[in-house]
């Protein structure tokens, strides 16, 4: 199915819904892996908004990306409870081991910061391709990343 058909399908799904923009953008991102600029105008038309308004919303929220990620997304928690359990050190080690920084994509792997996963009593916490990891360590995460990207 091409982009336009898929988008039309998503827009139809949310027709008439109050405050439909965020649900639409979530669906678009789930379908395309990011929110391509090409969808701004059709979404704006469907919701009777200006294109700039849609663009403004996309850029406001950290979740919405303008480019696809790697096939594997690793999220590392930077917030206080994880810091208290050596989270900053864990992130630094992993960055060194993988030769990349938070916010970067290298090959198949995207490394991202997240601010709290609600796992603060089993910190430090991370997420590897949607799988939550508590009591994490750099070594354990490295092994998991090697496993998923094998």
């Amino acid at each position, binding site marked *: 199915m091409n982009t336009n058909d898929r988008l039309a399908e998503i827009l139809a799904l949310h027709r008439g819904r109050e405050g439909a923009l965020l649900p639409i953008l979530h669906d678009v991102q789930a379908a395309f892996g990011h929110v391509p600029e090409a969808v701004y105008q059709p979404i704006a038309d469907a919701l009777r908004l200006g294109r700039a308004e849609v663009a403004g919303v996309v850029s406001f929220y950290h979740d919405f990306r303008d480019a696809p990620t790697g096939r594997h997304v690793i999220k590392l928690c930077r917030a206080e409870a994880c810091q208290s359990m050596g989270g*900053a050190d864990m992130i630094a080690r992993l960055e060194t081991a993988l030769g990349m920084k938070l916010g970067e994509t290298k090959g198949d792997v995207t490394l991202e910061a997240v601010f709290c996963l609600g796992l603060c009593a089993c910190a430090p916490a991370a997420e590897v391709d949607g799988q939550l990891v508590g009591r994490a360590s750099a070594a354990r995460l490295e092994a998991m990343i090697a496993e998923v990207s094998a």
Partner: protein
Amino acid sequence: MKIWVPGDAAAKACGADAVAAAIASAAGLRGQEVTVIRNGTRGMVWLEPLVEIEVDGARHGFGPMTPEDVPALFEEFPHPKALGPVEEIPFFARQTRLTFARCGRSDPLSLADYEAAEGWQGLRRTLEIGAGATIEEITASGLRGRGGAGFPTGIKWKTVADAEAAQKYIVCNADEGDSGSFADRMLMEGDPFCLIEGMAIAALAAGATKGFVYIRSEYPDAIRVMRSAIAAAADAGIIGPALLGQGPRFDLEVRVGAGAYICGEETSLLNSLEGKRGMVRAKPPLPALEGAFGMPTVVNNVLSLAAVPWILTHGGTAYAAFGLGRSRGTIPIQIAGNVKQGGLFEAGFGMSLGDIVEGIGGGTASGKPVKAVQVGGPLGAYFSPEQFDLPFGYEELADAQGLLGHAGLTVFDESADMLALARYAMEFCAIESCGKCTPCRIGAVRGMETLDRVAAGDEQAIALLQDLCEIMEKGSLCAMGGFTPYPVRSAIRLFPDEFTPMREAAE
């Protein structure tokens, strides 16, 4: 044989799914009939995955379990990870679980289990006594907003009830962005019908027919469980065209955030719900009068709403019998960070900070002395062990230049770098600011730079930082910019040596 393995996100993050799979295969090998129930969590996160088996009518706990520990479950007791009857574990036994009474006991999506454990009794009572008397119960309970601001819930509901409008809304704030907090998540994953019941009661009281649960996108498990629970309650005719088949209409829907901490602030949340950027709105107008889509709206935290069914079932005065001063009832305390026994502990207000951290939490996980505890999330102050006599209550913590917030406590051992934590507070504000006011948007960035100068040994920088904090506190529209100085200033106050130019020389 019945075996419970929590399906809670924290339990899963600690390996519960692998343990559940190992149980199924071990049972298969032995040809033993085993029913695995994925319950919510008991909140004792340091013991997760905490598996339970019924022995002579009492549920015995085993944990923290690994797949390797599973085969021994099918052999003779005692098991090396045996904890005894789970409700007799001191951490559990010392609690007053009203809001979390059901959480962890059963399959969160079983309507039969919910019904059997006082489910829908509060809603039935509301249908009997009507809106006015329901609001009186809530007022009598002394319930205050658990989302941070501590506003009396009864007054909020009455404002919405008294407003004339064609459409009113109940919005549940499940944005729970505070580090150190996870009670909203546990409640939604472990007892979703309780939140639905609380929202339905609020809807009846306020005259609203539509509700939204706004859940942060970082909580996919909570989103899934809440959606399933709403669908199950609608299928059973509990919500929908007629509440419990006899009341007015109430429809409920989950909306998902998009990774913005500021969307926990209620007016930002409402903008987000309407499909806009999450900019904070100036108040007035109050959301109670002009909230979602311009209509009168109750915005309440998950824990405020989840306390409601118990209050309606047992009465407002029974709830108010717990607590301290103007903090009535119970508070689900979240003990997190570098702590030996981390998890959720519900108790009447008034325990001392020290009792929570040392007595309940058991001190640090590292075994080193406690250095500081941040109370109330990223906008909350740090406290030191010298302040451990402080009672846990809204006014008591505010009087000590802190805040209770969402009742999360993050424990740090002596390795904590307070300057780095202060800088992080400013950085977080810079990243998450909605951008509406200058003191917050620009101030936070200046704050980071100034703390870098402090770290580099600049003697003037600390005075500059204090001025900047003052400007942020006084000139910010909301608590994001207004309270970010709390962690910064408390760190400086408690650990001045770490902010002096001597720092470099000493290291």
